[in-house]
């Protein structure tokens, strides 16, 4: 009496188990940009064009491995990640394919996209210096490199070196200064730390506001987010290296997957992301900067003022990433 029910249940569960298979007629995006920051865009695109988008979020390296494992049968059409280093690696490993698009070339400044046209920056993330105005006057500040000087001893707060944003920052410093000088800077930073490195930029900001340290290096959108919630925190943004190469910038961006079944549709989506109508949505949802120079940032972001950004191609963030990590390990930056 009981057995047929049991068998039936198992069978039904098995059938349900098979329903997850990909529907191949729609665009599939693997995204390391988190759902709450990308979903509004997908929804807007579907509303405008009727193209349905399936997506999956995870860490960049994991998504790339998944695409590699799936090989030719991968359902993925577009890979979106944060940080140029990740995009560079995706291109290196042959996961992406070159795309020639006039629209993308027009909308995205050349230092924010791959020279080989495999990946394209879609929003700009600025990693800059933040200080507590009760303890620091802006004229004490000048460059990232300057934070390694002894007068900052016991005042600096940093996020962990395991975060790719810091790895890219150090990789870009290496591009400018070479290995030996960069190691010196890193050792200086470590000596100046007021507390062990934090797990997130938000924690760094909270610690600066609470007075555990005076100054730190974070991405601006974390400042925007925190000040939106608690507008009275003593936090100010400073644009470093203005008399040198400019502020370190990074991108979140994407590229078309090599084995994509819907190449044309995937390129269209990329182009739409870079367009004037989508750029505000893409950047403002997270208080980032638009990559398209014709689009102005969110008023809250614009209020932080204009600055000169480092024009060296972000390609280098990927090229030097491994050596940057080794350097940080050597310098004892955890």
């Amino acid at each position, binding site marked *: 009496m009981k057995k047929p029910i049991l068998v039936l249940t198992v069978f039904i*569960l*098995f059938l*349900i*188990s*098979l*329903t*997850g*298979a*990909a529907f*191949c007629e729609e665009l*599939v995006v693997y995204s390391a940009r*988190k*759902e*709450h*920051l990308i979903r509004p865009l997908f929804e807007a695109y579907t509303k405008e064009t009727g193209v349905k988008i*399936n*997506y*999956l*979020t*995870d*860490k*960049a*390296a*994991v998504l790339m*491995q*998944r695409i590699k*494992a*799936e*090989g030719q*049968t991968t*359902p993925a059409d577009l890979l979106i990640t944060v940080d140029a280093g990740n995009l560079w*690696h995706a291109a290196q*490993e042959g996961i992406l394919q070159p795309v020639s698009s006039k629209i993308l070339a027009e909308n995205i400044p050349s230092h924010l996209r791959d020279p080989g046209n495999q990946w394209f920056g879609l929003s700009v993330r600025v990693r800059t210096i933040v200080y507590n105005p009760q303890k620091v006057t802006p004229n004490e500040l000048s460059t990232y490199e300057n934070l390694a000087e002894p007068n900052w001893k016991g005042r600096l707060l940093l996020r*962990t070196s*395991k975060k*790719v944003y810091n*790895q890219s920052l150090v990789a870009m410093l290496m591009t400018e200064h070479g290995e030996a000088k960069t190691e010196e800077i890193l050792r200086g930073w470590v000596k100046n730390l007021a*507390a*062990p*490195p*934090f*797990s*997130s*930029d*938000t*924690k760094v900001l*909270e*610690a600066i*506001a*609470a007075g*555990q340290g005076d100054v730190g290096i974070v991405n601006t959108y*974390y400042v925007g*987010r925190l000040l939106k919630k608690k507008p009275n925190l003593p936090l100010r943004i400073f644009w470093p290296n203005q008399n040198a190469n400019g502020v370190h910038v990074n991108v979140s961006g994407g590229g078309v997957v090599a084995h994509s079944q819907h190449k044309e549709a995937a390129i269209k989506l990329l182009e739409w992301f870079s367009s004037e109508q989508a750029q505000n949505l893409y950047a403002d949802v997270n208080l980032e900067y638009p990559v398209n120079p014709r689009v102005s940032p969110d008023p809250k972001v614009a209020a932080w003022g204009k600055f000169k950004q480092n024009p060296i191609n972000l390609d280098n963030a990927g090229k030097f*990433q*491994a050596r940057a*990590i*080794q350097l940080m*390990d*050597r310098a004892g930056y*955890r």
Partner: protein
Amino acid sequence: MRNAICLNSEYVCQRSRFPVWQKFAGYLDTWRFITCGLALTVALPLTVILWSFSYQTQEIWQHLARHVLADLLLNTAILAAGVLTATLILGVSLAWLTGVCDFPGRKIFTWALLLPIAMPTYVLAFVTVGLMDFSGPVQTFFRAWFPASKGWFPNIRSAGGIIIVMSLTLYPYVYLLARGAFRTQGKRAMEAAQSLGWSRTSSFFKVALPMARPWIAGGLLLVLMEALADFGAVAIFNFDTFTTAIYKAWFGFFSLPAAAQLSSILVIIIFVVIAVEQKARKKMQFTQSGRSEGQFDRIKLQGWKKWIATLFASAVLLIAFVIPFLQLLIWSAEIFSEEFNFRYLGFLGRSLFFALLAAASVVCCSILLAYASRQHKDKLTQFLLRISTLGYALPGTVLAVGIVIAITAVDKQLAGILKTFLGYEKGALIQGTILTVVAAYLVRFMAVGYNSVNSAMQRITGSLDEASISLGVKGFSLLRKVHIPILKTGILTAAMLVFVDVMKEMPITLMTRPFGWDTLAVKIFELTSEGEWERAALPAVALVLGGLIPVIILTKQTEK
């Protein structure tokens, strides 16, 4: 002529096949077959990971060995030793107090002390750092009211901090298993020892505790695997352990082979620990005589002792569960109106669905494995059993990669077969379906189910099997009619542990889930990795509440 050859060959076939087949069949009975099949399922992704040794990764190893590894190994050893000691003390003492003794509030503490198991370690970690770090409310309060206290606070993001956090979420594994052992034999063992004139203290340490050893060891083994494979909590504390090196190799140097090689070292460590433990207790038998769940008189704690017991239990409960859960509730309340929408019901539903499916499959397989282990004591079967439970030792992400690669390979073969024989062409069959997810959970959580079912199985005396067999009950019906009813508590424990573990599981769910199958843990990952701790409180609360369901069912079933 043709006929003759035919007959002849058939005759030859029969003659030559029969004895070989019989010999083979004699060895490969149902139970060995099941063990082999399950061991193979686990072995496949493990092989993929071990395969990594065929890649050149010298440069990364050299770098890690020169600059990183020494510190990491020291940190890992400190973490493992600290968490094992703390969970042993917390788990055993609380199990003894609620299982055998009586003190004010015991009935409530019996189930309440299990609650922390529903709290993922990474959630307790971010709540603790949020509350106790320099910029958190506790230190801010003290700085404001007692300026002299500045600088007194020990840094919470340190070895001590992470050991405390991990121990508080992991002690229930030891508590649960040890308590079962104490309840069924503790009191009787104490009576026997005390009748020989031993004091209560020495009877506990010399009789009750050694008798509970397989269960305590089973619990501690789960704790050790969990602690060694953890990445989420140590990342929040920025405390570098061995898993840090694994993640650095993969996410930093983009070398999955190096990450896999590093992970296989973890597997080997666990393998050795299990082997040593089993060897040490090989000669011991842990069966019980007489009725198990009978009523017995508890040791009634008197005077100040009973209040100390209440105080101790409440302190653990407060720090491990009540305070962090309240903090989560406060954060959730702050963001509820902007964060909550009906998609959360979907996240919750899918979390529960995955957990239920995984619990059912892991428990079924665990019962079969435990029975196979009972039937066959030979080395090969025992070895296969050990293989089947190794998945828990690996960091989830690395295991997930092994699984995805293995499944893709199997998928390609299947697709090829289907294409040649049926002309049916479809890119992927299992890949990206829920079947992948369930298989992955099975590989990962077999140890959790097997440990609790098997330790319960060990308590059934062999004479019971002999009596049943003499009455003609054997094989599957022996398992179904005799063992399973006796194993009920063990099975329920296994189901609950797996259910809660799957609810909390993050990396495998992330990597293997089909499109749109986001769960609560996935949501927490997305928010916490953007540093949005407060917003992550809402899915975390739902996760904890969902995980409480089986805990409550279990206590209802076992505490009558």
